[in-house]
């Protein structure tokens, strides 16, 4: 008797489960459809089909033509591309050695290094911006120390393109290290031991054994950095120059200060376009990871 009733309950749950499941996930799914997928499609459509002078919506490229013929917009785009490319490069150069060290080192020192590398995750960007100004800004801590050593002051990176660059690199160190470290986990100790046994040096080991297996993780880390940096707002807004500005502050100013939504949305679509390859690659690797679990 007890067994029969239990299986009844299970059966009832299975039939009702299909509807219950859909109902339980409905609200978040609707939110994603309405607030992520719809705005993206709408942004593309509204910038391409605009109401003309005769009041009829028609296909037009005029906001895009404006962007790509406007010197200031182009300067902003170049600055953004320059910052993104250099940030990705610096991140790789800085984080790969840290990740390699953490992959092979053990003990308290390694734990300390890992803790430090992850720490920026627990520092809000705006506090970082403030710390940056107090340290590297005019008469900041670095100037104070240089002055005490009777050396000339630095040319401060604050309010130059190097300001946001340094801040963004700092901000992205933790996740880049974590992504690379996860990738290095796939390089087995056995393959490294084998290569060492046949006399491979450190550089050869890195070039022939580790890097080929790490290629995918490097691309994931780079994609993550590109997506985060291309439209970064807070750090470029606070630390960067007033003109030219990066795409984030540029979009914000066009939208909120100039009340020019069509051009702001055009800028957004252009930033989608420049990131789409990285975005698709990034999403594909998240999906693959989830599936392989």
């Amino acid at each position, binding site marked *: 008797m007890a067994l029969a009733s239990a299986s009844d309950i299970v059966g009832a749950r299975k039939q009702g489960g299909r509807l219950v499941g859909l109902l339980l996930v409905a609200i978040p799914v609707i939110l994603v459809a309405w607030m992520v997928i719809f705005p993206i499609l709408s942004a593309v459509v509204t910038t391409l089909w605009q109401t003309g002078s005769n009041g009829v919506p028609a296909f037009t490229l005029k906001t895009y033509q404006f962007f790509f013929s406007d010197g200031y917009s182009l300067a902003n785009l170049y600055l953004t591309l320059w910052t993104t490319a250099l940030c990705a490069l610096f991140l790789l150069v800085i984080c790969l050695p840290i990740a390699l060290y953490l992959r092979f080192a053990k003990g308290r020192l390694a734990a300390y290094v890992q803790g430090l590398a992850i720490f920026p995750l627990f520092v809000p960007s*705006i506090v970082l911006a403030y*710390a940056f100004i*107090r340290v590297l800004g005019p008469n900041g801590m670095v100037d104070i120390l240089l002055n005490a050593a009777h050396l000339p002051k630095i040319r401060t990176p604050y309010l130059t393109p190097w300001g946001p660059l340094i801040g963004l690199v700092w901000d992205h160190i933790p996740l880049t290290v974590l992504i690379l470290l996860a990738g290095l986990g796939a390089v087995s100790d056995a393959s490294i031991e084998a290569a060492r046994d046949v006399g491979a040096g450190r550089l050869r080991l890195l070039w022939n054994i580790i890097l080929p297996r790490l290629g995918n993780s490097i691309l994931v880390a780079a994609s993550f950095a590109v997506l985060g940096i291309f439209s970064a707002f807070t750090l470029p807004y606070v630390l960067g120059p007033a003109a030219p500005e990066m795409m984030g502050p540029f979009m*914000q100013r066009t*939208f909120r200060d100039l009340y020019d939504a069509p051009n702001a949305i055009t800028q957004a*679509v252009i930033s*989608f376009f420049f*990131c789409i390859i990285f975005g698709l690659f990034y999403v594909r690797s*998240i999906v693959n990871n989830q599936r392989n679990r």
Partner: protein
Amino acid sequence: MAEPVLIDRPRADWTGIGLAIVLTLVIIFPLVVVALWAFTNVWRYPSILPQEFGLRYWTQTLSRPDVWQSITTSVSLACSVTVISAIICLPAAFAFARLQFPFRSILFFSFIAGQAFPKFGLLVAIAGIFLGLNLIGNFWGVVLIQLVGTLLYMIWIPVAAFQGVDRRMEEAARDVGASPLRVFWSITLPQAGPTIGAAVLLTFVNTFYETEGAWLIGAPQVHTMPILMISFINNQPVIQYGAVLSVILWIPSFFALLFARRVISGGSFARGFGA
């Protein structure tokens, strides 16, 4: 024969020492400078250390009405978003982890759609929609835009937590006659709880620091702490106000550091970012 070679021969770890020194200088030193400024009454250039330490600027900062208003706004925003997010996401996470329903896989992966696009561009596209709905400059408009930012992790992390629960224990409890609710309360929740707790905490902290959506949608009516901090940086000649606010702003991160670090250091967190 010689003695067997020790594998772990103690040797100075120069790479580690070098990295530790450089990272301490680059990561910790700037924050120490900010903390120093927060407890400084007088610090004139070019002295290496403040001339006078003290709490004078804590009293002054905490007696500013704009500071209190921003604290209230930030806390109520972050609480609203976290509670709403938990209410709509945790049942959905349970459904994704345990129930069979049509389109389960594609709906599950729909939450990463937003990850393929640069975030601020996406926010501008959403703001374009909000313009027509009169949600610009509105508290609930900010709640909505921040809520969307929490969906992915508030669903994916708990799904992993629910899937990690030992199903045999649940079935055993059911076999001895426990009701489904009782099983959920006594078996499922205690096992999935810590990870879900970490997800809730991370959601709260991330929402608390979310600046871009709040600025784009909420300004100038909705004034959160990060936004006040931006105006302190840009317009406030008294350095200590910003330093004191930085220390206050860091408190939620401190709790995240205490409680959620294990989740973040674990491999599954990095895997969630595509590693």
